[in-house]
């Protein structure tokens, strides 16, 4: 960004960019301030921007109504659990595809990605019936299993692109030197692989956290995650704007922070390294 431009141009671009960015951000910002208003103030006309009296009552009301803590716990278990299970299956697969590729490796990768093109509704009914018969409906482990399966192709692709960037020479050196193999793995391979694994983990936690189709269709009260929790607010009670805002804020805050933290990795991860 070393281009020289007149200061006026720079000011103009800055103002325009900030205006558009804040406009895009305004629904989130509005939710944030509304969550701290009283119900009466939330629907007042004309609206106030900042709360005249700040209140934390809405958050308590949300917990009382739908047990936020339980849903958040389910979300954490499902998203972290499915990501770890996915990594367990995906790391060996991606590793072998990256370091011992065969003629069919590209085809297998393409096929794996194509399973992601299968619309969830196309398989919803059988899964629903299988889950009913196996008594997996509305259970956390049933949901974790589904989440693992739907995100597995993405996990494999992401890891594959990261692993492919580890120079093969290093791996061969490690192999030649049999006695030093363990040290090589520990001091060379693991440090090179861990960043890729870490950002894959982060991104899949985000994807699983926000997944709504399966959580809404396969769970109700017991195993519901935050996406199911918040969907229950679409019923008429949801019209309490301040409480709805508090619930929304509670549902998105953890992942929003995680997303900000990992936005650099997001580009690489989600485009399978195809865009640099």
């Amino acid at each position, binding site marked *: 960004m070393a281009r020289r431009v007149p200061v006026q141009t720079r000011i103009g671009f800055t103002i325009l960019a900030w205006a558009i960015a804040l406009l895009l951000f305004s629904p989130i910002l509005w939710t944030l301030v509304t969550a701290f208003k009283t119900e009466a103030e939330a629907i007042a006309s004309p609206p106030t921007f900042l709360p005249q009296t700040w209140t934390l009552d809405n958050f308590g009301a949300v917990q009382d109504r739908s047990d936020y803590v339980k849903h958040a716990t389910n979300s954490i278990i499902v998203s972290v659990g499915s990501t770890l299970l996915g990594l367990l299956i995906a790391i060996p697969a991606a590793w072998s595809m990256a370091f011992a590729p065969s003629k069919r490796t590209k085809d297998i990768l393409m096929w794996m990605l194509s399973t992601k093109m299968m619309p969830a509704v196309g398989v919803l009914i059988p899964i629903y019936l*299988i889950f009913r018969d196996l008594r997996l409906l509305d259970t956390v482990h049933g949901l974790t299993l589904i989440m693992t399966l739907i995100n597995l192709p993405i996990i494999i692709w992401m890891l594959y692109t990261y692993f492919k960037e580890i120079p093969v020479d290093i791996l061969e050196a490690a192999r030649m030197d049999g006695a030093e193999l363990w040290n090589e793995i520990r001091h060379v391979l693991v440090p090179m692989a861990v960043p890729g694994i870490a950002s894959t983990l982060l991104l899949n936690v985000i994807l699983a956290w926000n997944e709504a189709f399966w959580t809404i269709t396969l769970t109700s009260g017991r195993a519901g995650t935050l996406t199911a929790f918040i969907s229950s607010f679409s019923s008429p009670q949801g019209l309490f704007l301040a409480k709805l805002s508090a619930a929304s804020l509670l549902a998105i805050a953890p992942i929003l922070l995680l997303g900000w933290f990992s936005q650099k990795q997001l580009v690489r991860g989600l485009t399978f390294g195809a865009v640099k």
Partner: protein
Amino acid sequence: MATKQTRALARTMMAPAVVVLFIWMIVPLVMTLWFSFQNYNLINPMMTGFAGWANYTYVIGDPSFTQALVNTLILVGGVLLITIVGGTFLALLLDQPIWGQGILRIIVISPFFVMPPVAALIWKNGFMHPGYGMLGHLWKFFGLQPVDWFNQYPLFSVIVIVAWQWLPFATLILLTALQSLSEEQREAAEMDGANAVNRFRYIILPHMARAITIVILIQTIFLLGIFAEIRVTTGGGPGYASTNIAFLVFRTGILSNDIGAGSAGGVVAVIIANVVAIFLMRAVGKNLDA
């Protein structure tokens, strides 16, 4: 380097992933296909036996199916159009020398992390509600009658919400591609007297083509299955005005308990997705073969 042992080891290491994904794909698909030729209703146990093509003629012949199909195409096409055009514009803007670029990136990407039901509810109640939504206040401020968005423009409203969620993604990917364009190339073009429009058309746009392909692929995968946004806002209505294929299958199969017809709808959804997939995978397959 690929000795016999390493090849065997590689196959063993790949096996779990391949087997798991294969089962995940084939078992439910075969079941869906099987159910789609059966009379099967969860609340009416009297309905059993082979149905022939009855479920298909019922689903495809239903006017709501045609509407759901058209809605699906408008939804996917509309969101792609808004996010690609808007994303290109925003990426070009954020690539300019501006103050606070790092913070701006974080602000712009934020809607992407908002879970779909929350995005839909924020827009429905905080923004588009005619009584106390932000837009309602704005309309009243200018002395206009507030618009009841979800009743008057249901599909458009859903498109706005979904586009809001995906614009950040498109912007971020396109911006990353833009920033990898070498400064020399740009300057050379400028020296040669290429104006801004020509620079965009002959240098920037071809450079971003690959990123645009990726954005189209990833978004289409997710947009074909849009569900939560419809479920918590319009419920597919009024009538079938904002029902897409995903929501129609859910409605038929799960809400109306008609497993046979729902499955037939599911099979049709899979076929549509695969037609789209063949085109997309070709384009991307070429691009990814670096």
